[in-house]
């Protein structure tokens, strides 16, 4: 059931729908070297959310950084079915979105990716279950 909070709307980079508990990263991340796609976890020991599982979560990232090989890691997450349910990026990132676009081409089940400032999620609690819609709206569910 939808709660009383108003939905927030992000810019759609890759369209789709997804639902899961929110996982908010406090620091930017490079998927290449920072995410293990086989286990679907944050594998960079220097990252504050080191060890957190991404699978099925709505992942909110302040920004993606680092190597353009991160596209390949995004594709592997989709292929291994360890991907988040959706990704909300504080700052648009073509590299991660490209991995999802290629995933669509290869027939992997894909996920929505939105540009959405982290501050827009302000009201939503850290572990809230949220739903991401194809129109870019994001809202918490009970």
């Amino acid at each position, binding site marked *: 059931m939808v709660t009383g909070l108003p939905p927030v709307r992000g810019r759609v*980079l890759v369209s789709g729908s997804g639902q899961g508990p929110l996982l908010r990263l406090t620091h930017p991340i490079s998927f*290449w*070297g920072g995410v293990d*796609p*086989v286990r679907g976890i944050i594998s*960079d020991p220097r990252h504050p959310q080191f060890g957190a599982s991404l699978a099925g979560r709505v992942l909110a990232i302040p920004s993606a950084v680092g*190597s*353009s*090989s*991160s*596209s*390949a*890691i995004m*594709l*592997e997450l*989709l*292929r*291994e079915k360890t991907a988040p349910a959706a990704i909300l990026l504080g700052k*648009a990132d*073509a*590299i991660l*979105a*490209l*991995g999802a*676009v*290629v*995933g669509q*081409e*290869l027939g*992997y089940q894909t996920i929505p990716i939105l540009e959405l400032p982290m501050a827009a999620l302000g009201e939503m609690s850290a572990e809230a279950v949220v739903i991401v819609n194809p129109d870019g709206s994001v809202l918490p569910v009970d």
Partner: protein
Amino acid sequence: MTLTPHEQALLDGEAGEATAMAMRILVAAADLLGAEQLIEISSAHIDGCLHHGDGGVEFAEALVRGGGRMAVPTTLNVGAMDLLHPGIVRTDAHNTDMARRQMQAYVAMGAEPTFTCAPYQVGHEPDVGQQVAWGESNAIAFVNSVLGARTERYGDFLDACCAITGRAPLHGLHRSENRRAQVVVDVSAVPEALKARDVFFPVLGSWLGLTVGDEVAAIEGLPTDTTRDQLKALGAAAASTGSVALFHVVGVTPEAPTLAAALGGGEAQDEDGVSRRPAPPGWASQSMDRLPRRIAPTSGALRSALARLSTADTAERIDSVAVGSPHFSLEEFTHLAAIVAERGLGTSGPRLAVPFFVCTARATLAEAEELGLIENLRAAGVEIVADTCVVVTPILSDAGGVLMTNSGKFAHYGPSTTGYEVVYGSLEDCVASATTGEVRRDETVWSW
């Protein structure tokens, strides 16, 4: 996003399914990047033949099945296998097979099997002002800065889509206005003796990347005889610690015959070398907000960049040496052969005490062999790695320990990708240390 009729036809599948798929991905990427049109390119360098997982193989083989062919001359970056010396990579049968398939799929589509991060060393040098689509951060920095051709930062998948369609999104460093220096880096206070040494350039590059991030810098005060290998090392280090994709060196690189030219944009030079677009007279005083920031590395800043390149600064012994990131050039082989011969190592003398890896392109290795540079190096215990390198695939011993290198890029990525601690030094330091296994570094060069 506006497509030409020909581009629309490619998208509609007139040139086959692979080209249509490449075009769909390219158009989606162009949208994401905010480009309004595509431009034709004259060459591509594909970084996507390195195996990160089996999705990369499925992508490449889908393009092969769809009849994909490279539309422009295309070179390949390193793979995860040394196809010439397969025994050197320690991985399981599945990964070996997949790494090989991923490399071969791109060759099947007409890419040249260069397997090097330095295609500019094996005969691929675009002209000043040419539009290209290159991947691999050091190759991007080199082709933009040292050769003056124009690329943005392309990576996995997009590099191949550009090569197959012969097009790239018109954005970023493809456009003249984005090639102007935004910051002036003055190194005139650095002693000439230090600026003449190879060991200086990865340190300057590391400092530059940390300091300017993704901004375009114009470096003033480097010697006019700065070598290509030194510029290569500078760019590779700056692209490791920052996202530097273009830098100018005043009086050295093609878009910076003068500081004014570097600041005025990347307009091509006339044949006589005079910039077609000089800065307007008095521009600096007329409009202060157009003044670029001016910075100068201090002795302390460079020493701290130097220190940052070693995670095991107090180590007394090393377990291995790796050089050749970016891939070793013929000039670097000549230099190494001379150092090894001077120390009496090789056929007529002792061998090195620890494993010593040199990573290079198969084409450079063939040239060095022809010049007779390799036999004595091998006799001295030097192991040559072709087609790949020690930070992208398991080559170093599992035992771990301390790795010495003269490469800013190996020093930056080594600890996270190999698990080794690193010690940075000159090529001479690397050979001196590998002779006994004890760290030997000439610190006097840094007395500034």
